[in-house]
């Protein structure tokens, strides 16, 4: 552990060491930012949220959102602000619109269709009656022939 002490000694600016301060000035505001930023898309990244991206545009947008939070704008207003400028692309939670109805309803439609298909298949299976197939004379003769062969061991 001696080298640790060395680093501590060599590191400049060692003042009063105490409880680390939160990076954000206002924890409540940061919490709101986080809550919003995880559902917003970084437009210049390969599929990352605004919260996780280090891209310059992402930092600019986070700064904008912080300012809007400071102005006490509601979540809806902040999202509207961004959508007005960048379109629905910026939202990771697709909005409810005519064009996205199929998206949101789709899984439950699929479930309904699957359940319906299941019930139909099971009913159809249950309704199948065994078919009555009488043995013809020809077949009976053949059976006798085979059995007699068996008995004689040929």
């Amino acid at each position, binding site marked *: 552990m001696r080298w640790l002490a060395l680093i501590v000694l060599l590191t400049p*600016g060692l003042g009063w060491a105490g409880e680390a301060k939160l990076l954000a000035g206002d924890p409540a505001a940061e919490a709101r930012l986080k809550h919003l930023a995880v559902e917003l898309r970084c437009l210049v990244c390969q599929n990352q949220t605004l919260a996780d991206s280090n891209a310059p545009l992402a930092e600019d947008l986070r700064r904008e959102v912080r300012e809007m939070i400071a102005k006490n704008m509601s979540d809806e207003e902040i999202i509207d602000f961004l959508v007005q400028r960048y379109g629905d692309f910026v939202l990771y939670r697709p909005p409810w619109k005519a064009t996205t109805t199929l998206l949101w309803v789709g899984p439950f439609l699929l479930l309904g269709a699957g359940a319906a298909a299941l019930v139909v298949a099971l009913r159809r299976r249950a309704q199948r009656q065994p078919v009555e197939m009488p043995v013809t004379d020809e077949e009976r003769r053949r059976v006798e022939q085979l059995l007699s062969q068996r008995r004689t061991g040929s």
Partner: protein
Amino acid sequence: MIPEVGHYALILALCVAVVQGSLPIYGAAVGHSTFMSVAKPAARTQFLLVLIAFSCLGYAFAEMDFSVLYVAANANSKLPLHYRLAAIWGAHEGSLLLWTFILTVWMFAVTLFSAHLPETMRARILGVMGLVSMGFLLFMLTVSNPFERLIPAALDGRDLNPLLQDPGMVMHPPMLYMGYVGFSVAFAFAIAALLGGNLDAAWARWSRPWTTVAWCFLTVGIALGSGWAYYELGWGGWWFWDPVENASFMPWLAGTALIHSLAVTDKRGGFKVWTVLLAIMAFSLSLLGTFLVRSGVLTSVHAFATDPKRGLFILAFLAVVIGGSLLLYAWRAPRVGLGGGFELVSRESMLLANNVLLIVAMGSVLLGTLYPLFLDALGFGKISVGPPYFDTVFVPLMTPAIFLMGIGPIAQWKKASLPNLAMQLRWAFAASVVTALLLPLVLGKWTPLLSLGLLLALWIVTTTVVSVRERVSHLVGNSLVSCLAALPRAYWGMVLAHCGIAIFIVGVTMVKGFEVEKDLQMNVGDTATIGGYTFRFDGAQEVKGPNYLAARGSFSVTRNGQEVTVMYPEKRFYAVQNQSMTEAAIDSGLFRDLYVSLGEPLEGGAWSVRLYHKPFVDWIWGGCLTMALGGLLAVSDRRYRLAWRRERREEPVAPSPLKTSVA
């Protein structure tokens, strides 16, 4: 010279693939024994040739041959050897070669373990696999050649993407591909059965172990990818519903449905047509995944560099393979009879319901992944579909499936009684509900999702106990232990796999419910406490790596005054690619992970730091591994071992449809 050998080996492999894909299938159709017997040596030759090609590329990487374009683009003289070798699959061309190589590995395995199959079936299976490999070899030789030369040779390479310079890179793609590509065997079995018209319980029995092993690999591959993202990307996330992640998850969902469906076809001869369709679906989703990752139609951190020609080729290949198999299905499936009947309430119907839920879930993931593409193609503008959508949709679909998981193993085949089942499970249900409601309160926080997650996990465990008791009660034995040991491995495999899911659910629920994150600015000597652990920042020093320069921070962690560990997160700068990367420090424990990530340097030697306390997060991957182990255990069941032994002695085994089994 060596790269040319590799290139030539691929060309030869293509010729062999053409032969393998045509003669045996034709031979099986007309009963020509010689043509059918071409399949086995052809498959083995292909394996050898692709192995040579793969080794040549590996050699080029090991010897840092920068006259090969692919090597120059993905390696560097300062890149350590193990990463140079992993760079073989670091980009598009090489990973295709890996795909093809693993396909030939599976082909080879089929030639080893198929003596008990009728010759026509084996010929068809290898023939179909030959057709698939033909497509991939053709793809490589036309627009994705890994052996293309760079003249004049580069002085040094562009280096592997720093994010990929990691042990995860060594393990994740091969495991994943073993899974993806392994479904081609199940697919080949299905096509062979459709071609031959003999879709019976025996077919399912032969197909099962292959499918289960592929599924195990895929489970491990996905878990590795998730774990790698967790510690590599520096923000503690482990699943983003990214298109490429979904591309591997969809075959997994279909594969899970398939292994359950095969169980029914094997034991009861039912679901034959549905099982065949699932087998086609699982592999089709693997191929679709290959398309999505390489074509550029979707944006993803995982996507390979794209080129419209490549996308078009894969799409055409997809259309031919999947379209062809679905056409064959439409033609032949109606002729397949129904299997054993069963009632509305029975184990069969519950497995069928489980299948429906899994496939609906898969369909929803597919819908969400492709929806932006649909809208854009129709001119309705661009949207994004991300985790909020998938999380909202997936959980309600999976909840009933997990509920069924508890009831299915206890229900009887053919006909079960709902009142009886309710009777048997009433204590399990009560215990699960009560504990799930109370436990979060004890732990300090109650939300509905938290309770739901715990309920599902507890339900699985309690119903498993009921199931084991039920089984053991039928056996007459000396002691409990001997009774438990008498239960077949296939049963224990199922128990283990289902418990794996319970473990996974606990992990996800607890992490999402209880994780704590703090963004701090820390001067040297500052402390911070989360989750009962106190972190003290002891400064950062400069460290030199083989191909990077890093600032390494040092954090001492104590709990209740007792020293726990020292953690060293790094901020690395890779000079060649001009990219910086965060290497988080993680202290893993059975019940929690401590996670420290360096942000930016501030004035006076201070740093912005992110600290996490993540309870039970390793249970997520522990659960996945347990699932895979369960699968392996099931495959080691006596039935398959006996079949394997019989094969070694080369006694023909006729499929016996009257054979019943306990499990």
